[in-house]
């Protein structure tokens, strides 16, 4: 069975949902095919305080509103699917799902988004939920009066480290470089917090424990000196990876596997556009994803009209 649409959008994060809103409102028959959770990274954001025109809200609530908006304009959303195959080169674009369903459209917007980067070191899977966490707001209270390590040097790492001081007796930030990538205000707030100390130019090498996490191995990169440290919890915030493995080779990408687009979100393949966290760009915010999604939808609409 083949379902025909004017426009297919791959991914239902902020960029994909926004593109869905604009395209459906422009009366394009639109479907969003989504392999992950509707809302994408937005859902993983506990609090969104800087989305213009919206007072501080939960990420999942903002995502839910966008989803409802897209549906209200007639956009179809197919979630929790697995895409088996893409055919993007021809004028008629095709996507085949693992369950055999086929979708076709005259244009495609790729918004596969990104996912939190993991350390990929021994013990990480074993101790997830048993000492290793990726969300301070969710799990911080399990570490009340305990010592924790935060891994990372960006805004998330430093902000979450400060948040964890509300629970933990001590928070150590382990970062691979000798400086932070976070905004200056986040660095300042962390440095001024007496419960936080810093282990710079260092990386974790392994996790150990009996049932729950008990110990980590840390390597000081310049000296290659390895030390073991007893620890109750680890919070990992080391950035995001683009979800572009399945479309590699089908659209132009840079060395970081991010999709290369022009100012109109065109990929260089006729009728194929891209937007959101998976494209090559510097800043990844809900607002920038929404802007990208808008431009991609308007460009796709123009392409389809012509």
């Amino acid at each position: 069975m083949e379902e025909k649409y004017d426009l297919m959008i791959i991914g239902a994060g902020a960029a994909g949902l926004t593109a869905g809103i604009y395209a459906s409102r422009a009366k394009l028959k639109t479907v969003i095919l989504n392999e992950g959770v509707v809302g994408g990274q937005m859902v993983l954001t506990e609090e969104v305080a800087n989305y213009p025109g919206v007072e501080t809200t939960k990420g999942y609530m903002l995502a839910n509103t966008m989803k409802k908006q897209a549906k209200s304009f007639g956009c179809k959303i197919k979630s929790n699917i697995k895409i088996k195959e893409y055919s993007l080169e021809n004028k008629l674009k095709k996507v085949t799902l693992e369950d055999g369903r086929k979708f076709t459209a005259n244009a495609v917007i790729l918004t596969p988004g990104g996912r939190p980067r993991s350390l990929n070191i021994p013990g990480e899977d074993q101790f997830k939920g048993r000492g290793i966490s990726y969300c301070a707001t969710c799990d911080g209270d399990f570490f009340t009066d305990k010592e924790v390590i935060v891994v990372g040097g960006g805004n998330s790492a430093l902000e979450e480290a400060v948040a964890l001081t509300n629970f933990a007796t001590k928070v150590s930030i382990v970062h691979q470089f000798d400086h932070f990538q976070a905004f200056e205000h986040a660095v300042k707030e962390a440095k001024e917090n007496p419960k936080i100390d810093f282990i710079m130019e260092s990386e974790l090498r392994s996790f150990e424990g009996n049932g729950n996490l008990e110990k980590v191995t840390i390597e000081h990169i310049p000296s290659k000196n390895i030390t073991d440290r007893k620890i109750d919890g680890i919070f990992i915030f080391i950035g995001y990876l683009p979800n572009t493995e399945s479309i590699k080779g089908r659209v132009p990408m840079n060395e970081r596997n991010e999709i290369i687009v022009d100012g109109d979100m065109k990929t260089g393949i006729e009728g194929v556009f891209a937007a959101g966290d998976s494209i090559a760009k510097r800043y990844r915010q809900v607002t920038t994803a929404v802007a990208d999604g808008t431009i991609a939808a308007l460009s796709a609409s123009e392409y389809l009209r012509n």
Partner: protein
Amino acid sequence: MKLLQTTIHEIETADELQKIINENENVMVCCGRMGPMCIPVYDEMEELQEERENVKFYSMAFDNPEASIVRNAPECQGFMGLPFTMYYKNGKVAKATSSIQNREQITSVLDEHFGN
């Protein structure tokens, strides 16, 4: 009082949970908050409850005092990540997991303990 904004039926009391697991062969209960680690699990359950008629899907608010029946379950000892997800087979805990789980992880537990 219901605390979770999902379409999954929210269990409000320990007695209700006990009744459900006594009366149903296969039960999955996700005990969490409306947070970023829990919502993806609820989302998967919302989809799965339409696909798996042999399993009953429920949520329970972690901060509900009645949820101590889950929080203090022996199978959850050492859990340090939300949500606590319980899989009950014939009234007994067949499996318990901590923290976020993706669709493949959930369905592998469902397949292993409850069958397809």
